[in-house]
């Protein structure tokens, strides 16, 4: 039982991280109806920037404090993600208003390659570490109930809490504020949104900036777990099944989808894996997504696609 719980917790934790990346996809999809292929590149860029500046800043100004260095690096990176959002709107999106969604989709693919390249030119392509001082010690829960307790990573617990808070805040923001409403309006219909005076340009900057900040959080957490390297960009693709499962338009969906996939991966690997020679973790998420696409294409919480005939 303790082993089962351990696996379950492990799954929930990695699920939270998937959810965090999935959230970035959902944000942009909600506001522009486009699947943003560049989300992974944004995570990588944010993580690279964070990793480098947290080393550079103390070197430039000659201080030791780790906390201060991380804080400043976070602010610099946050600012950079806002600038990136502004630039993307200015250079790319502005010219694609009222275009086919496929056109926008291809544009995000282009942005993705550009950000991948630009990040590595600016910050180098070596493997870096991010150390925001998250506790690495394992914790033991329920020691009274099971012999030896259940082993949980303190780092994972914190990461999960941060992700949950972020998701909650964004869900409320979308549902209950005027700006959130405007964001949803833009997602539904560009032309109509313009006709009632919603400034498309500003909405896009806001949404890409928020997606950039979510990417920063995801980048810091993933980066401090696995190190910052190019593969971070492809980790984002593991979050693809998460949003298909949860529904591309649903913020809570991203988190539930993330949890289901995180847990499913770990449990199936441990319990079904031995029967088929292992390796389930690699494809489990994609097969699940495929099944969903067949039977419930809008995902668990997505807006139902209603067609009038």
């Amino acid at each position, binding site marked *: 039982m303790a082993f089962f719980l351990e696996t379950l917790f492990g799954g929930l934790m990695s699920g939270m991280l998937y959810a965090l990346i999935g959230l970035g996809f959902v944000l942009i999809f909600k506001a522009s109806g486009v699947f943003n292929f560049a989300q992974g590149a944004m995570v990588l860029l944010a993580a690279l920037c964070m990793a480098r500046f947290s080393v550079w800043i103390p070197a430039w100004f000659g201080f030791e404090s780790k906390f201060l260095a991380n804080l400043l690096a976070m602010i610099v990176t946050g600012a950079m993600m806002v600038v990136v959002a502004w630039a993307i709107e200015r250079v790319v999106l502005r010219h694609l208003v009222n275009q086919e969604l496929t056109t926008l989709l291809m544009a995000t693919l282009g942005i993705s390659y550009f950000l991948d390249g630009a990040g590595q030119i600016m910050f180098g392509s070596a493997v870096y570490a991010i150390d925001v001082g998250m506790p690495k010690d394992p914790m033991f829960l329920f020691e009274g109930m099971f012999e030896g307790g259940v082993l949980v990573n303190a780092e994972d617990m914190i990461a999960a809490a941060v992700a949950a808070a972020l998701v909650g805040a964004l869900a409320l923001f979308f549902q209950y*504020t005027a700006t959130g*409403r*405007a964001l949803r309006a833009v997602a539904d219909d560009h032309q109509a949104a313009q*006709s009632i005076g919603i400034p498309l340009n500003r909405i896009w900057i806001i949404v890409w900036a928020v997606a950039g900040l979510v990417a920063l959080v995801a980048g810091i957490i993933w980066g401090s777990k696995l190190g910052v390297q190019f593969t971070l960009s492809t980790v984002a693709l593991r979050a693809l099944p998460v949003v298909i499962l949860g529904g591309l338009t649903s913020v809570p969906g991203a988190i539930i989808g993330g949890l289901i996939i995180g847990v499913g991966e770990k449990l199936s690997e441990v319990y079904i894996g031995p029967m088929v020679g292992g390796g389930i973790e690699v494809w489990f998420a994609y097969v699940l997504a495929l099944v969903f696409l067949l039977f419930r294409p809008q995902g668990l919480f997505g*807006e139902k696609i209603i067609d009038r005939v």
Partner: protein
Amino acid sequence: MSREKRIGEVVLDLQHISLAFGGVKALTDISFNVREHEIRAIIGPNGAGKSSMLNVINGVYTPQQGAIEFQGKSFAKMNPRRAAEMGIARTFQNLALFKGMSVLDNIMTGRNLRMKSGILAQAFRWGPAEREETAHREVVENIIDFLEIQAFRKTPVGRLPYGLQKRVDLGRALAMEPRMLLLDEPMAGMNVEEKQDMCRFILDVNDEFGTTIVLIEHDMGVVMDISDRVVVLDYGKKIGDGEPDNVRNNEDVIRAYLGVSH
């Protein structure tokens, strides 16, 4: 007070508007004006350029030639946002509602330009932002009452029948408290009863709020009944302009609509 007396000065003046898409001429040298408080109709057969005309006024299309004068200010080109800021609202021929959102939310988006509180104030629900939201909500509730769609407040508009969706579209435009309302075929695809309702709403908006209305319509009967003056377009050219009775007897108009015996 009779309707004629309420009608005021020219608010919108279109001068020699020409619009082409590549080699296709959508509009050729069209001039007409709209007076304050009047109901002005644009009619014409399919492909006559009616919707293009509306899109020019609203700033979606930029004409290659001609000038637009709105409330005494002249523009070579408009854009939809500026049009909205100056008090021009519109509805769409092929419904452009925010389908996933509720009726209430859809109409609330119409208040967007009038919301002053910043994004952070909204996020943290600071007092003024909260009060502002409540005030706007009141206006929107009035519109919902006016359009008699109270029962569907929370329904996602995608689930409503077509006639009601058209009302929501009108409601969203009304929420802007516009000076001028552009209606793109407000009665297309409706049954007789729905058409009568819509006519009533249009006349009430015009009477009660004094909103100037420019509308495109296919149904000749409806147009002749409710409009003060009518412009007739055919193949992107203006072939008639005047009061409904005048237009009805205009030879060119009859030819365009009914064909003519040779």
